[in-house]
């Protein structure tokens, strides 16, 4: 199923419409690299005028505001108000396995993931944050939602760890079913950069309950991996155990890096997941 960006955005707006604007807590504002929309009530890098102060030692001649200084004898420096915006990055796995849907009545995991990603992005945009897909320059404003939607529908996968920048909020959506080594790399990198984020596992109910019986030949969506079973029902317990192990492992990794980990089933209401994401993004930084 392919959605046009406009469609996706309309759905995401519907899903995120009733949540309050998500404003990320502004931690470590002092060290903010990128200027943003928050006025910080103090001098610093920014675009709006903040105050004139007498030039002090150490101010370069270039920083002196000569027009103000000319009215008096002292030299004044024009300070601007420090501004910052929390920038957030969203990363959605484009693993072929994400295109799986257990039944015709359910969306694929990728569809649900796109919906959630765009919804959370729009929430943050509404709060004035700068949002982008991971690896793209974060921007604010309504138009960015369009770009998000287009980006989410564009093909191509990126390595999330390589695109991490310091001081961002990262939302990672994946099914965490394939080889999980990238999770570890990502979290290690994030911890070293001081980046905080959220991991959301999007699963199909079939993957969470394993409702198969009898002789089944399981194939990976990308091909390659396959597993023949004569008694799929007998594998259920083992599979569920492995799935729980995987979730525990990812959760432990996330906890070590200060990240949050959650699970969402594609037949559940996306609003629940969105609420959880909102909470997690807020809590993790409090």
């Amino acid at each position, binding site marked *: 199923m392919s959605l046009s960006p406009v469609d996706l955005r309309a759905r995401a707006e519907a899903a995120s419409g009733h949540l309050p604007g998500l404003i990320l807590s502004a931690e470590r504002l002092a060290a903010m690299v990128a200027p943003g929309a928050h006025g910080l009530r103090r001098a610093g890098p920014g675009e709006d005028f903040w105050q004139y102060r007498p030039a002090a030692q150490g101010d370069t001649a270039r920083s002196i505001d000569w027009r103000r200084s000319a009215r008096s004898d002292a030299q004044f420096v024009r300070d601007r108000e420090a501004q910052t915006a929390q920038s957030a990055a969203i990363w959605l796995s484009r*693993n*072929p*396995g*994400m295109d*799986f849907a257990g039944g015709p009545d359910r969306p694929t*995991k990728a569809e649900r993931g796109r919906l959630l990603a765009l919804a959370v992005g729009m929430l943050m945009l509404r709060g004035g944050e700068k949002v982008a897909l991971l690896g793209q320059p974060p921007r604010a404003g309504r138009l960015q939602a369009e770009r998000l939607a287009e980006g989410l529908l564009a093909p191509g996968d990126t390595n999330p760890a390589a695109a991490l920048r310091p001081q961002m909020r990262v939302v990672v959506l994946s*099914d965490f*079913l*394939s*080889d999980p080594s990238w999770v570890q790399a990502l979290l290690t990198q994030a911890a070293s950069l001081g980046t905080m984020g959220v991991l959301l596992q999007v699963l*199909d109910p*079939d*993957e969470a309950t*394993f409702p*198969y*019986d*009898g*002789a*089944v*030949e*399981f*194939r*990976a*969506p990308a091909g390659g*991996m*396959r*597993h*023949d*079973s*004569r*008694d799929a029902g*007998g*594998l259920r317990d*083992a*599979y569920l155990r*492995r*799935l729980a192990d*995987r979730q525990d492992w990812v959760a432990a990794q996330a906890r070590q890096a200060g990240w949050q980990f959650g699970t969402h089933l594609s037949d559940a209401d996306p609003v629940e997941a969105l609420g959880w994401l909102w909470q997690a993004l807020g809590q993790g930084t409090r």
Partner: protein
Amino acid sequence: MLLLGPLGFAAPWVLGALVALPVLWVILRAMPPAPRRIVFPGVALLAGLADCNPVAQRTPWWLLLLRLAAVAALILAFAGPVWKPVRQAPADGPLLVVMDAGYAAAPDWSARQTRADRALADAAADGRPAALLLADGQADAVLAFQPADSLRAGLRGAQPVSWPSTLPEDAQAALADAPEGRLSTLWLADGTDYANRPAWLQALADRGPVTVVPPSRPLRTLSLAEGETPSLTLRAIDDAAPTIEAIGPDPQGIERALATLTPGDPSVHEGLTVRPVAIDLPPELRNRITRFQVQAEGHAGAVVLADDRVRRRKVGLVGDPADQAEGQRLLAQTHYLRQALAPTTDLVEGALGDVLDTAPDVIILADQVQLAETPELADWVQQGGLLIRFAGPRMAGYDRLMEEPLLPVAPRQGGRDIGGALSWGDPRGLAPFPADGPFAGLTLPDEVTVRAQLMAQPSPDLSERTIASLSDGTPLITRDRNGQGQVVLVHVTANAEWSNLPLSGLFVRMMERLVATARLSPSEEAAEDRVQPFWTPQTVLDGFGRPADPTDLVPVAAEDLDRGPGPGHPAGIYVAGERRQALNAGGPFTLADWPGATVEDVRATPGRDLKGLLLAAAALMLALDALGSVMVARGGRRGGGAALVLLLALMPAPRVSAQEIDADLARAADEVALAYIITGDSRVDEASEQGLWGLSLALRQRTSVEPGRPIGIDLDQDDLSLLTFLYWPVTESQPAPSPQAYLRLNDFLRSGGMILFDTRDGDVTGVGGPDMSGALRRLAAPLDIPPLAPVPDDHVLTRTFYLLSDFPGRWQGNPVWLEAPPLTAETEAGAPFRQLNDGVSPVVIGGNSWAEAWAVDDDGYSVFPIGSGWEGEQQREMAYRFGINLIMYVLTGNYKSDQVHVPALLDRLRIEEILAP
């Protein structure tokens, strides 16, 4: 052959394969069902997991049973099972197959061939020598015994013949070459007895067992019963009374059953049921008949070919009015003729004119001269009539006899008295009839003498024209061909006045012979041996009673023909000179008995081969197995669906009910009713209805188009596919039809319908005021209308029925638009019209308010006034003519623009041109 109760197996060793069934059971049982294939992203989590309970799923027992049953059915099928096989006594000696091949064997000939073929095949399988004896009278004198296989091709090519079965004369001589050993004989009998059969049966029974296969169908033959009135006789073994078909060319010349005859009451005669069949048909019909055939009997014996004996001629007798007293009737010439001809012919008496009107085959004029209707009579003779004239006192006394037309020879006036009281000599007897004449073979009674006769002028061709003469060589009867017919003059009277010939039986037979020569195409005299007449086969029958061409048959001597059909002279029509004779195979027959032979029961079936049934069952079971396998592979979830599909496939398809059609529309299609569009304006609608009714009345009066009551069409609901013509008055207030209605309208236009748009504004249009063109554009915009042009002068619409130059309605002088002629159409030199053959315009658009001009009320009076006085009525007439032309254009298309009509139209135009100035 292995026998298990009623079941026999031709190849019992194949049954050994049944041992393999338990092995199959084990193999099939262990075979796991095909796994389902599921795309599952979590495969990585499954990697390395072992099935904790890896038991293969068993094939369900019913599927297993189905497969085993299918395999078992296959094995049984290839073992050649036969239900109740024929048990044959083992025989090792040579085999002789005797096949009766007469016409009586024809009805079930293929069954006989099959039976004989089976016997030969069995003999071939056992390596026994065999011989085939076809009892068609053409068999070799000595039978050659050969390997049985080499006889089968000859058997397949054998055909029954159209004469009774005939065996060679000497049985012992024929069997001289038979190999050693007991000769077993299979005799496929036709049920009839014939000449050498008992001797053959005896000879064969002496040499070994004889098995007789009696015919499977009761024999029925048809023969012609001689008599004054020909009739048919039906002989049958059983009690059935099948109808007899009288077959001949119908007036169109097509061969078909003209009448059906029903046999009469049966009488049993020598074991046969004999029924007379009267040929009770009008002479016109009877004379067409070429053959009679017992219905549903396909052999030569059930066919009677009609020859001259069957046909009854219609004879017109013209003589003196019979107003004489009763005692003098014996003096009238017509009396003797009537007595002679009435039993065998249909007599018409009266004046010559009346007789000619009944189209007789023969006309007999008894001593008539100077007839008023001579030209008509001459025409009739030219066209094939046979005119027989008798001399008499009136003819002899006629002083302009030399100029009398329609005589074969020029007679000498006065006649000749031979044996009278005042003459020398005695009355003359008759000379023997020439062998090639029509009277050949008739015996002459001694007492017949001629006392007076009409003499002929001597001429070179007199002897050629004489077909009977007196003993002194003077002509008694002369004949001449005249056109396709012939004229015969009997030189004596038809009463006893001039000779006692009419009193003798010879006279009757001579008249029959003469009448039988009627309606003969002029042919030269038979050039064969004049002493011994030969009969040439014209049409012969094969054993199945089907006519065939006599390709390789030589003419047959008369005495051979008298013995009935046989080798060399099969049943058929034979011609000698002008006489036709039918040789029919059917006739009395006697039933055969078979002392000392085994008569096979025909009803016993030769064993039913079960192989095909078993193979079909196996195929069905395998198909079911495929369905069942799918069901198992799907985990039983779609099982119901598969069963349903199977059930649906087996269920007969429901009958598609005919589309519902409005009864009124059906009537309109039936009556070619004209249709108008209901505009919603009741005044306009009423005018449309009345107008189309008026036009319908005009069409009824003047043309062969007879439309019924007009019908109003609601475009949004009614189906247009049954209509041909729509009148669409354009009104301002009319709502545009729905898109579906436009789809229907476009279909209607594409499939040959026509719409006449009438804007009814001929009085106001063209002066710049408001007119209906806007409404017309609005209504007609969605229609597929080709480019339009005013009607060209040479358009076919101007001449489909009337020649028109203008198309007035209630108004006149306004252009009428229809599909533009193609630009490439050029006027041919000399032709008044361009060839606009293609494309009947789907629309005609004008504003002359035609319906109002046509409109009549229920009393037949015009509803709307037109113009004033006579001129107005003239205009109304032209409006009707336009309507008729238009309907003709709709119904006949561009038929009238066919070049064929151009000459007639040119003539018409020329006349009008001459008359015009």
